[in-house]
């Protein structure tokens, strides 16, 4: 036999280590890994205490020499912050978090130390209500051009005519399917849930996140993604409890399982869908035709930001289309800014995962603040998970 024994191995040792490191770094769901580990808080504390951030040789007038940003893992082009430091002398300390709730908790507790952070649309009104984010001084954001922003995505950054946050990128929540394993074409959430109990039995994943899991169960019946109506929620709960024994996992860390072939179908965010499809073409990304979630991540500045000038400077820098386009190429999520889209290559703009057809986008709903913080939905999720 001329075949090496290594041909039979499912993975080479080098590949294994690569995979492990990738798992560790977080091409896994941001909510999962960091939420579980508390790594976000730990890195934040460590970096500050140990003085890991270098002190630059010079500093631009009034900007200080360092600032910190709270964001999501794998969400930026690392070169962005290096270039910013080279231009301004301000070193950027990056704190990565697992969930909006964690960010909120940290800001609420005070003294977060961030001068910029990246909240998702539905949290902004809560931040405003709690009075912990800054009304943005648009004069300091010359690179931002509201007229170039798709108004569909910018709305929630502005409350009563005051802008509290400007958009970074948007995305959708659909589902990813391994079409080799589940060949039947699917176009709806109804099919997603039904398949989970049939051909996809034991191979389907749903998010460990009440907003999307309950929201998409509501979609099975055609109810609003954000519904808080008890009778509608009761039906969603009934469905979820029925599906539960057929699931592979309740987890937002679905990339490894989809890649390994353990899971065949999962709820999925745009950028994960794009990455999965790019690496494994048979994995398709589907938006339910009944609707579902559309979301936007924003930039905002905390009221107690220790270095507001630097926060504004970095935000303004990030609003430069030339900078922003590299960010979008790095994290894979679609941009809200027409100027950025103009710079993006054609194959990105034509990628239906990133830029779905208008009729698919139409029924999508933004998550509502009330939905996220509703105790009733939290309890429903707890009942589902403990069933």
């Amino acid at each position: 036999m001329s075949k090496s024994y290594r041909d039979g191995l499912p993975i080479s040792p080098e590949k294994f280590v690569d995979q492990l490191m990738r798992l560790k770094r977080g091409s896994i769901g941001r909510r999962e890994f960091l939420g579980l580990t508390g790594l976000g808080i730990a890195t934040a504390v460590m970096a500050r205490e140990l003085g890991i951030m270098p002190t630059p040789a010079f500093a631009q007038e009034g900007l200080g020499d360092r600032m910190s940003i709270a964001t999501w893992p794998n969400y930026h082009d690392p070169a962005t912050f290096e270039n910013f430091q080279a231009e301004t002398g301000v070193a950027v300390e990056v704190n990565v978090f697992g969930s909006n709730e964690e960010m909120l908790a940290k800001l609420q507790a005070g003294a977060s130390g961030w001068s910029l952070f990246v909240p998702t649309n539905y949290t902004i009104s809560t931040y405003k209500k709690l009075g912990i984010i800054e009304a943005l001084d648009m004069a300091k954001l010359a690179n931002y051009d509201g007229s170039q922003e798709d108004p569909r995505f910018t709305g929630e950054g502005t409350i009563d005519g005051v802008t509290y946050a400007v958009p970074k990128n948007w995305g959708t929540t659909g589902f990813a399917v391994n079409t080799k394993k589940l060949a039947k074409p699917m176009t709806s959430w109804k099919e997603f849930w039904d398949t989970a109990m049939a051909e996809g039995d034991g191979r389907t994943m749903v998010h460990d996140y009440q907003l999307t899991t309950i929201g998409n169960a509501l979609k099975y019946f055609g109810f609003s993604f954000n519904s808080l109506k008890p009778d509608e929620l009761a039906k969603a709960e009934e469905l979820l409890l029925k599906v539960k024994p057929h699931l592979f996992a309740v987890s937002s860390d679905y990339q490894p399982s989809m890649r390994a072939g353990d899971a065949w179908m999962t709820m999925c965010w745009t950028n994960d869908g794009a990455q999965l499809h790019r690496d494994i073409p048979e994995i398709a990304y589907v938006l339910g035709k009944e609707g579902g979630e559309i979301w936007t991540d924003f930039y905002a500045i905390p009221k107690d930001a220790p270095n507001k000038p630097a926060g504004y400077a970095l935000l303004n820098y990030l609003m430069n289309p030339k900078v922003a386009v590299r960010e979008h190429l790095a994290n894979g999520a679609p941009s809200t800014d027409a100027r950025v889209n103009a710079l993006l290559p054609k194959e990105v703009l034509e990628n239906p995962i990133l830029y779905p057809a208008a009729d698919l986008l139409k029924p999508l709903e933004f998550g509502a603040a009330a939905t996220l913080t509703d105790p009733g939905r939290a309890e429903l999720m707890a009942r589902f998970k403990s069933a």
Partner: protein
Amino acid sequence: MRSNVLRHNLLTALLLGPATAWLLVFLVLPFVAIAVFSVGERAPEGGYQAAFTLAQYANLPARATAFWNTMVLAPAGALACLLVAYPVAYYLALRAPERWRLILLALVVIPFWTSLLMRTYAWMYVLGGRGVPALLAYVGMEDVRLINTPGAVLLGTVYGYLPLMILPVYVSLERLDRRLLEASADLGATPISTFLGVTLRLSLPGVMTGFSLVMILLLGEYLIPTLLGGGKVFFIGNALVDLFLQSRNWPFGSAIAITLVAVSVVVLLAANRISTRLSGARRVDLI
């Protein structure tokens, strides 16, 4: 005389000062904070708002399933761990050649230097589709699923906590007077009777220590069921993570945490009591 006593007390206080302060700051204060939270209310936007109500405690049945799952997992996991750990500890303490003993013990402990998270991720990989199932597929067994099964959770639990079980059992077996085993054989006891009547009996303090240690850690475990069980089974630890980090219902989470602490204390006291009784009432044997 009196000043001597005073000086002595002062010295004791000085020596114990740092430890006491540490306990106060890192154990007592958080506990007090959690106790205060637990009688408060959830603020409308989440978090805590001051109040005095026992509503959170009255609401505990809402997590009854989580409590139940935990109360089953913790002792079952600890027991499974014990069943694997005991023979290992027995071999190390009574059978392994002297010069190998330290090396073997080190091998037991070394994995502990890596974080449990990393080791659990490694298991995710091993049990995942590209790990063992891929090898099985190579020999013709297609589509075997190992990850996200109760078996995987059990394996992860046993693996993760094995050293914590082996070490106390090893210590109690290692301290066992070998002559007692000979005495037992001399008095006509077969090896099995000797094991049950002497070895096992006298290692019970170590068994109880390991068992309660592992069980208490398992009471708060959430990583392993989440990562190797697919988060389909909900434990108290998972309930706490969700309540503190997701729905941010801190008062309810605090009430659950306090209840969990109370349960842990009861477990510890019970274990202590049992092993004291079994070891011939010599407290020394508990160490």
